[in-house]
C-alpha cells in the first residue's frame, strides 16, 4: 500500500504521453480537471485517445488544440450553455478525428467492467440503434481492431445469448482500462482519501479503471478529517498515484460547495470557437497567453470568482444572475 505523491501541475502534465488513452472525472460542465487539460495543451500532447463517459469543455479544448486522434464517448457539449461541442463537430466533419459513439449506459458499463477487472459488461440498452451499425465502426474501418492496439478491443460489441436463464440476447461491451485518469476532486486527504460533495458521476470507476491516477484538488486536508465520516468518501489513498493542489482547477466548470459553473465563460467559448482560427485565438488568450494557473485566475479577476463562489449551505452560488429576470 503506497500513498500518492504530491506534484506540481507541470509534473502532472508530463505523466501523460503522446498516444496515451486518457479519461476524466466529472459530468458535462461539472468537476472537470480543466487546469490539467490546459497544461496538456501547453505541453503540446499529440495523438491522445480519449475515452470518456461524455465530453465537455475540458475535452472539446483538447480536440480543438489538436491533441486528440481518437474520441470514444456518448455525448459532447456544454448542456444549455452551448448545445454542441464545436471543436469535435468541426474535426469530425473535416475527417480529422476518429469518432466512436456510444450511449451513456454503454460508456458507464464499459468503465465499470474496467474498474472491476472484468473483461466485458452485459447490457440491453440502446439496442437497435446505429450505435451498433458496423458501417459506422470507425475504429474497425481505420484497421485498428486488429489485436495489435492494446487499448482498442478486437470488436466494438457482440450479441450474446443468456446461458443461465434463457432470457433474450443482450450486448457484451468491452471493458476499458485507460492509461491515465485525470481527476478533479474538491477534497483530498494528505494520505490520498478522496471526497466529492455531490453527485458522484463515474468518478470512482474512472479512478479504479485507470493505470495511473492523478487527482487535482481544491485543497489537501488532513486524512483524519475525511476518515471521521468514511461513508462520504469516494476513493482510498492507495487507489491514487499523484495529487496536485490547485484551487479553482475546475473553472469554468463547477465544483459543488466551492463554485458554480461559469455560464458566461462557457457560452462565450462555444460562440467563439466555431472556426479553427477563432479557437486558436481563444487558446492564445486563455491557455498559451498565461504562464501558470495563478495568472489565469488573476486574468479572470476577483469579482468574477466571487460571483461564482458557492453557498456553503446550498452548494451553489445564490447570487449569480442566471436567467433573464
Amino acid at each position, binding site marked *: 500500500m503506497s500513498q500518492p505523491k504530491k506534484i506540481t501541475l507541470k509534473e502532472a502534465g508530463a505523466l501523460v504521453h503522446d498516444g496515451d488513452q486518457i479519461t476524466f472525472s*466529472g*459530468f*458535462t*460542465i*461539472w468537476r472537470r480537471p480543466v487546469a490539467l487539460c490546459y497544461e496538456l495543451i501547453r505541453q503540446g500532447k499529440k495523438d491522445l485517445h480519449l475515452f470518456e*463517459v*461524455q465530453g465537455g469543455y475540458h475535452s472539446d479544448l483538447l480536440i480543438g488544440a489538436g491533441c486528440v486522434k481518437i474520441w470514444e464517448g*456518448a*455525448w*459532447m457539449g456544454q*448542456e*444549455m450553455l452551448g*448545445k*454542441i*461541442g464545436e471543436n*469535435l463537430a468541426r474535426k*469530425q*466533419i473535416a*475527417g480529422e478525428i476518429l469518432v466512436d*459513439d*456510444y*450511449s*451513456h*449506459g*454503454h460508456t*458507464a*458499463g464499459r468503465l465499470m467492467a474496467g474498474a472491476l477487472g472484468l473483461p466485458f459488461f452485459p447490457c*440491453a*440498452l*440502446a*439496442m*437497435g*440503434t*446505429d*450505435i*451498433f*451499425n*458496423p*458501417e*459506422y465502426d*470507425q475504429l474497425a*474501418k481505420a484497421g485498428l481492431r486488429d489485436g495489435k492496439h492494446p487499448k482498442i478491443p478486437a470488436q466494438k460489441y457482440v*450479441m450474446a445469448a443468456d446461458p443461465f436463464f434463457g*432470457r*433474450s440476447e*443482450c450486448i457484451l461491451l468491452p471493458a476499458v482500462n485507460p492509461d491515465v485518469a485525470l481527476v478533479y476532486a474538491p477534497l483530498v486527504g494528505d494520505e490520498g482519501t478522496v471526497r466529492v460533495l455531490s*453527485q*458522484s*458521476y*463515474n*468518478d470512482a470507476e474512472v479512478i479504479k479503471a485507470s493505470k495511473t491516477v492523478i487527482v487535482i484538488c481544491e485543497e489537501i486536508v488532513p486524512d483524519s478529517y475525511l476518515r471521521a465520516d468514511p461513508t462520504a468518501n469516494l476513493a482510498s489513498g492507495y487507489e491514487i498515484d499523484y495529487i496536485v493542489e490547485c484551487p479553482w482547477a475546475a473553472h469554468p466548470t463547477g465544483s*459543488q*460547495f466551492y463554485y458554480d*459553473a461559469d455560464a458566461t465563460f462557457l457560452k462565450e467559448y462555444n460562440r467563439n470557437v466555431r472556426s479553427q482560427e477563432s479557437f486558436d485565438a481563444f487558446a492564445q488568450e486563455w491557455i498559451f497567453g498565461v504562464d501558470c494557473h495563478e495568472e489565469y485566475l488573476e486574468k479572470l479577476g476577483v469579482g468574477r470568482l466571487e460571483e461564482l463562489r458557492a453557498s456553503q449551505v*446550498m*452548494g*451553489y452560488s445564490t447570487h449569480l444572475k*442566471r*436567467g433573464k*429576470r
Partner: protein
Amino acid sequence: MADSIEYCKIGEFKPMDLLAAAAAREVCDGDVVFAGTGLPMLAIALAQKEQAPSAVCIYEAGSIDGRPLDIPTSVGDARCAYQASKASGLFEAFYGQLHAGYVDLGFLGGAEIDKYGNVNCTVIGDYNHPIKRFTGSGGNSDICSFAKRTVFIMVQEKRRFKEHVDYITSPGWRIKKWPSGEWASKQEVYGSYFKGGVSAVITDMAVFRFDDTGEMYLDTVHPGFTVQDVIDNVGFTLNVSRVSGTTLPPTKKQIELLYHTIDPEGIFLP
C-alpha cells in the same frame, strides 16, 4: 374543483408555456420520471405541483428524487441533488434505476424523428462524412430504450420529421436488428427486456401519438394551428384520421406556477 379551472386564451400564453403544460399532462401521479435538461425540467416541476405530487425525478448524473428549490440548468448541477433521497452517479441512474426497470417515463429532445419514433441526435448526413454533428446520445437512447413510456419534445419542421432519420440514436417502434441490419419491431429486438417505448411527441404545433403498429398519428393540434399546418411541416405521410381535437392551452394557475414558482429567474421561460 373542476369548475374552477380557467384556461388561457390565445395571446395569454407563449408557445413555451403551452409546451410545458402539454408535457406536464403526460406525467401520472407516482411516475418515476427520467428527465433531461430544459423544458422537461419545467414539465416535471409543474406536474409535481398539480396532478402528480408523488412523481419522482431522476437526473442522469445521479440525483435520485431531488427536490430543487432553484431550477437547475444542468442535470449535473448541485441544485438537482438538493433534498434528494440519493446523490449517486451514472451507473446507479442507468443500471440501478433504468436497466432495473424502475423508470416509468422519459422526457427527451431530438433533432430528427421518423414515423416510427426513431430519433436522431447524433449527425446530419452519413456518420462517416457528416455535414453536421449534434451532441450524440448521452442518455437519450438508453432512456428511450428502457423507460415504459417516452415523450419527445421537438421543433415542428419538415426537415426534422423525416421518412428516414440520418442516424438512429434512439430506438422507436421499428428498428434494426444488429449486426445483420434487418428491420424488426422493438418488441422483437428487445425480447424479454422489452418494457415499452415512445408514447408521444410534443412540438410547438401539435401532439402526436403511436398506434398499435408503432406508427405515428396526429392526436391534437395546438390552438392557432390547423391540421393542414401540421401536414405541411411533416416530411412523411402523416396519419390524420385519429385527430381528437385541440390541445388544451395552459391554465392561468399553470402560468402563475411557471413564472412565479418554478422559473422566476427566467432561465428557460421567455
